[in-house]
């Protein structure tokens, strides 16, 4: 059994183990979940360590026949496009697991669903067979539905079903696309490496049809305006750790889909659709920022900031050049780290105040100076302050985009001002100003909460100064991929 299979099976093994622990024994349930997620992170760390960044192709490949009649394989592998996301999933998986210790109701089921979710997310990034990919892609939905529906806020049922239906609607059309691909390939196969080679030769109308079939699935996950409406609901209702994974990992599945499938499979269609995609990205940036600015709910504001940030990813991808793509992939990683931290911080405050209304905070920096420090750093990283990681990704994305579409890029860059606007507004309304009388009894951020934030903060700082640390893993793969997409 290879390292990648271990990575997928570890959380599942943890889930099965928890199944046999009595529900009352919450200490052992937590310990098992923590052990499983820590083992995942350890394995992911070993993976990064053993990964050869000079190699553009899939590494640690495992290929076993699964359903021979349909030529379906259990085929997993990792390359520069997915490595960062796998590590991100493992890291946020552990930190969100620690953050989940505040969950008090029905812990047993919570951690079982949580670990299944982990396995699904990791599998999505590792699968190299479209059938397997689709399986993992959908598996993610079911635990997500339960996690939001059972442990969420007051409107959780509505949010859970909306998320489930929205994302399913997108992915079922992808299934039609997958099958169309399968039957157009000779011999019929779901092998993504083989399919990418075959489908490049398709004529433009077919490529465009298939591109659009996949587009909806990815667009809903990213989410691209106007398919984003599930996101604020899901985020506001989800418990804090699930919000972290939702923003940190699930949104990346959409961007990853574009990189792994849409662009390499249908390069001609990708070039045709590049400009519309760029426009959509710019709309995401501006629209997300404007809506975020108008929010009264802290969490909803961060949710809309995700919409805005994913716009930078899209703009970078649509630039169809090396700089833009490197920026987009880096931005996905950074956004996972920073927004994960932001959601954790919202959770910290919510646990104390039991509200997220910005108007009910104010002057919190006085009783909670350490919290204020973290919130300030993560806000500054999120608004793109040079020296912190958020800046590098956004800058590279825009730099790439400028070469492709200068006008659009100028509008997009305007979004940065809006972003700075609402993040500074957050700092002002939450931390500064006269102390809100309700806020006095709030205890300072505790050690467990600090533990979940420190690794994210460290990565934010280090990547901000040495982006090459992350970039070097993806550069070779991106260069090869770009070559393919450019040449068609």
């Amino acid at each position, binding site marked *: 059994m290879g390292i990648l299979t271990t990575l997928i099976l570890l959380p599942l093994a943890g889930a099965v183990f928890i199944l046999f622990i009595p529900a009352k024994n919450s200490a052992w349930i937590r310990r098992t979940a923590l052990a499983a997620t820590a083992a995942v992170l350890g394995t992911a760390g070993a993976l990064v360590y053993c990964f050869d960044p000079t190699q553009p192709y899939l590494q640690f490949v495992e290929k076993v026949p699964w359903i021979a*009649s349909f030529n379906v394989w259990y085929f997993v592998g990792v390359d520069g496009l997915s490595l960062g996301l796998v590590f991100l999933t493992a890291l946020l998986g552990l930190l969100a697991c620690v953050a989940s210790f505040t969950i008090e109701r029905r812990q047993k089921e919570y951690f079982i669903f949580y670990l299944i979710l982990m396995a699904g997310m990791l599998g999505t990034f590792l699968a190299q067979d479209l059938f397997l990919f689709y399986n993992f892609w959908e598996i993610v939905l079911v635990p997500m539905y339960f996690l939001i529906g059972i442990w969420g806020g007051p409107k*959780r049922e509505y949010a859970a079903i909306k998320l489930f239906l929205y994302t399913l609607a997108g992915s079922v059309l992808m299934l039609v696309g997958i*099958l169309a691909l399968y*039957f157009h390939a000779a011999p019929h196969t779901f092998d993504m490496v083989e399919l990418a080679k075959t489908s490049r030769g398709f004529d433009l109308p077919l490529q465009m049809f298939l591109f659009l079939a996949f587009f909806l699935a990815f667009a809903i996950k990213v989410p691209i305006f106007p398919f984003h409406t599930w996101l604020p609901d899901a985020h506001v209702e989800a418990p804090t750790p699930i919000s972290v994974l939702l923003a940190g990992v699930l949104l990346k599945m959409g961007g990853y889909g574009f990189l792994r499938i849409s662009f390499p499979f249908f390069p001609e269609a990708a070039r045709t659709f590049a400009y519309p995609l760029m426009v959509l990205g710019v709309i995401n940036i501006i629209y997300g920022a404007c809506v975020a600015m108008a929010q009264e709910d802290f969490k909803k504001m961060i949710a809309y900031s995700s919409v805005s940030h994913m716009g930078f990813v899209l703009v970078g991808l649509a630039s169809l050049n090396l700089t833009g793509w490197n920026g987009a992939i880096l931005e996905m990683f950074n956004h996972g780290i920073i927004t994960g931290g932001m959601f954790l911080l919202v959770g910290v405050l919510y646990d104390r105040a039991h509200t997220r209304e910005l108007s009910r905070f104010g002057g919190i920096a006085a009783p909670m100076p350490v919290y204020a420090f973290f919130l300030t750093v993560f806000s500054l990283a999120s608004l793109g302050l040079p020296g912190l990681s958020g800046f590098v990704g956004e800058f590279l994305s825009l730099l790439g985009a400028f070469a492709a579409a200068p006008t659009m890029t100028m509008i997009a860059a305007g979004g940065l001002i809006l972003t700075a606007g609402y993040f500074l507004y957050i700092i002002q309304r939450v931390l500064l100003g006269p102390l809100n009388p309700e806020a006095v009894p709030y205890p300072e951020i505790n050690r467990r909460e600090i533990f979940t934030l420190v690794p994210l903060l460290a990565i934010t700082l280090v990547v901000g100064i040495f982006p090459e640390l992350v970039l070097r893993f993806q550069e070779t793969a991106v260069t090869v991929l770009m070559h393919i997409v450019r040449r068609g």
Partner: protein
Amino acid sequence: MNSALDLQFVFPEVILLVCALGSLMGGVMAPRKKLLGFLALLGIVSAGLLLPLSSQAGSMFFSRMLVNDPFSVFFRQLLLIISGLVVLLSMGYEGLENEDSGEYYFFLLLMTISMMLAVSSTHLLLMYIALETVSIISYLVAGYDKRDKYSSEAGIKYFIFGALSTGILLYGVTLIYGLFGTLDLTVIVQHLPAAGTPQQGAFFLALLLIFAGLGFKCSLVPFHMWTPDVYQGAPTPVAAFFSIGPKAMGFALLLRVFTQHFSWGTFNGTTAALVIAALTMTVGNIMALTQTHIKRLLGYSTIAQAGYIFAGAALGTAAGNQAVLIYLFIYTVMNVGAFGAVIALGNTQKSRYIEDYVGLYKRDPVTAVALTVCLLSLAGIPPLAGFLAKFTILAAIVDAKHIPLAVVLVINSVVALYYYARLIKNMFFEEPSSPSPLPSKPPALQVLLILCVLANIFIGLWPQPLIDWLTCLFLPSN
């Protein structure tokens, strides 16, 4: 002509008949009625064990009335599995205990025999007789719960609709006889090219009438109206049986008549068949959205499922036919599990509405998990078996290049998720009004629920054996 071989072929049916009669007599004489269920199970298992022997007997029996082909082998196996599962359901259904359960199992086994004969026949007359036998017994068992007025209503309703539809079928059969002078499908196919233009119209009409008759059994739109009413009124195990047994038989006969011997193209019916498939799934799903009665909900859900299955049959391709068989098999384990959970709750709570499922997870976790797995499987969520079933159908549709139908199907599965998820939401998301755990279930039901959950997971994760089994069956003939 060899009467020994003839007997060898129908030996499983004979065993079933013996057990059926034993059950009928046992119902009068046996001191412990509970044992009758085991007698029925014994008959079904031994019939299943005898099937391989039966299929070695040759290819044609009883003057070409019965045939032994991969198709009949598959459906005889499937029907035995179905009745075995339904016997388990019935053993776990407490409404039957004080009734004359001897007669009940007698009827059940008799229906099984008739269905097995129907699927192994290529002769329209025998098909009709078997179908009529199944129908008449169906009316009896649908109204089995004599004290319940809904049950009586179900019996009457099924009778009226059923009598009409078999009448229509018989009319089609007589037309065929008038045209060709025989009812043997294999012979008719040989005469087919010779039929002149005036006869073509009559032939078309005859096939249309036969389709209508079979469409009733499969609850295809527009012959579906009876389904929710009958399911609602009939005793739950009987409703479960209707949703899989006669349906499997109906699809078997549809495939036999319209894809094996004739084709949809024979009477320019390809487009019409595709439209009916699309309509069936859409109507079923949209009607299910607003249902509050659990059995009506499942009734409409089975209509939608019939639409998916029929989509495979409407293609008329080998891949489509194979997908239908796979779907029918998986559909059996999904639907039996769902009905099993309904029985489990109905036994103690007399629950009829989906509000009664609120907080079920707290009160009876096994039933809640089993129902959830079966519903997600019905919704086609990977990696459960139902996804594989839908996937094979969808693959056959895309392969045949009917992309609009494929899109209709996938959109339908999103719509369907809404009402399945609503039930799951009730069970898991909400707190029960009274937190006391439910009394324990009959063991037969517990076994059945666990079996269905495992089957749904294992077939989903490892479907190759199922596919191999079908391929093995069909490879020699192709």
